[in-house]
């Protein structure tokens, strides 16, 4: 197995007969990398994440995660593969409103058998993870009672549980104030270091990129959009 966890090769995507949204000749992410993907709106950010997570299918080219090519997989097996290998953090409203904090964090391990196995004893793993992220006392709470900052930490815990190879964070800090952004990122980095996870951090907020060893701009990566169309 190579140390490349995500590889895009000559990937093109457009919705039926409309304009090309994604044209990426080459994009590789190595294991353990922390990548800041700069993506102003209108650059195909959402589409690219849909492709990486296997929700959308490329019109041509190859996308492979952990050396497995999506092109050879059915949409159903892409779904379960996503559950096994990807942790996803949204900008906000990450949590299922009718589950408790603990149930939210445990959910990926109920959906993916692999993640459940990697998590070991689920309850003690959640306890330890919550301890490190500073959300121990929230575990029994209803998610709607949490502040945005607390919600994002719970979302991070849920993305991290069961050690998925890649964490995709889609503007996870934009709803937080500055101090919280930095703390949040540091916690995320620490957790990833524990098991050697890879982070793809997508944001239009350039102020955070100093914290990342590697920065790629979607404007340069995606040939389908010009400098002008991205804002």
């Amino acid at each position, binding site marked *: 197995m190579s140390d490349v966890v995500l590889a895009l090769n000559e990937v093109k995507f457009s919705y039926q007969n409309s304009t090309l949204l994604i044209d990426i000749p080459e994009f590789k992410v190595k294991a353990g990398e922390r990548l800041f993907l700069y993506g102003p709106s209108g650059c195909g950010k959402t589409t690219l994440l*849909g492709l990486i997570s296997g929700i959308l299918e490329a019109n041509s080219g190859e996308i492979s995660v952990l050396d497995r090519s999506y092109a050879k997989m059915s949409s159903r097996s892409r779904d379960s593969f996503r*559950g*096994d290998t990807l942790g*996803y953090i*949204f900008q906000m409203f990450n949590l299922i*409103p009718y589950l408790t904090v603990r149930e939210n964090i445990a959910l990926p391990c109920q959906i993916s058998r692999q993640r459940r196995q990697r998590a070991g004893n689920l309850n003690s793993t959640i306890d330890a993870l919550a301890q490190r992220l500073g959300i121990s006392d929230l575990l029994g709470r209803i998610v709607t009672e949490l502040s945005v900052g607390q919600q994002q930490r719970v979302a991070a815990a849920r993305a991290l549980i069961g050690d998925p190879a890649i964490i995709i964070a889609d503007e996870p800090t934009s709803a937080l104030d500055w101090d919280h952004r930095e703390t949040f990122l540091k916690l995320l980095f620490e957790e990833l270091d524990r098991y050697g996870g890879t982070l793809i951090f997508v944001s239009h907020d350039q102020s955070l990129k100093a914290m990342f060893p590697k920065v790629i701009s979607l404007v340069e990566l995606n040939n389908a959009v010009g400098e002008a169309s991205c804002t």
Partner: protein
Amino acid sequence: MYVASLAFKSLWNRRLATILTVLSISFSVSLFLGIERIRSGAHDGFANTISKTDLIVGAKGGTIQLLLYTVFRIGSATDNMSYESYQKLSEHPEVAWTIPYSLGDSHRGFRVVGTDNNFYKHYQYLRGRHITFLHGREPNNIFEVVLGESVAKELGYHVGDSIVLSHGVSDVAFQDHSDKPFTVVGVLKRTATPIDRSLYITLQGMEAIHMDWVDGAPPLEDGRIRPEEIKMDDIEIEQITAMLLGTKSRISVLQLQRDINDYENEPLMAIIPGVVLAELWDGISYAENGLRVVSFFVVVVGLLGMLVAIYNSLNERRREMAILRSLGVGASVVFRLMLYESMFLTCIGALLGIVLMYIVLLIGQPLMEEFFGIFVPIRGMTLVELMYLAAILGFSMLLAVIPAIRAYRNTLYDGLTIRT
């Protein structure tokens, strides 16, 4: 397994809508099952308007007509039978008891029945109940009358009141027997059968008010016989309208019926009430089917309510679906999730509906029996009822496919985009 658990927790999160939906399903299910039971209770009640009477005998004519005017006080006889034949039948070795009926007069729209004390002793309804008195006693004298419960209540009569009977059974009777008033001596207890809607006098009383009539016309002033002049023992009864009889052994009923139908002295007819009641019920069973159709649509409306509730929840749950997808849940699982939700709602609604039906039956049973004469037995679920429930569940699954498809398509369209 987690899908079912998610479905349950999601429903619980929307408890108000969930509870309302479940209640509406349970109401419709209990209404459906309840109506089904009341319907069969009404059928039994109808069949129980008269009970333990083996034969009804009258002049030859229509069988249903005979049943209608003797049991339901509807219509009238075309011919009478002789009192002599009545007495002969009473003495028949197979006959245990007889009740004579002499009909044809009325009081303010209620039928007057001339009978004797056998009526109070032997008439039975609703699985063998006897007639009992609310007030007063049986009529022993010519100008004494006993009222059915509805007659007394609707006309406000009490024991001791004096009333005048009318000739004929039309609502606007043109000839009153005003020269021979009757005194109320008793009121019967409610039976919830046509018994309540009649007045009861003696056969002699019936004879007495027509004694001075000539060829069906009221007497002229000088031909009138004053009531004081009439003595009970002087009256000879010549005719009655019909009779009820009970046999000593039910085995002899068919033979007795044949004998009466072949009776040589007079053209008579005997009917078995149960048989003719069943014929009559068949004739009006379209009403029964109508009731069934209505209760079926009540269930459809209940399930449509569920459909609307689930469908309405879909938009606010798109975010939830996107989150689930990001966690590796396929669109087909989302489809299943929606089906499970409908299944939960329908199953719980149906179970609650059954419980509700039994509660209502327990509370309502005595009331329905008292006010409508409908006895609804409390028994376990029948196979037919279970099949109805299975059909309801199947139908709800069919309806549930609609929001499930919508959710499935939303999910595919949204992908991981969180729409709020």
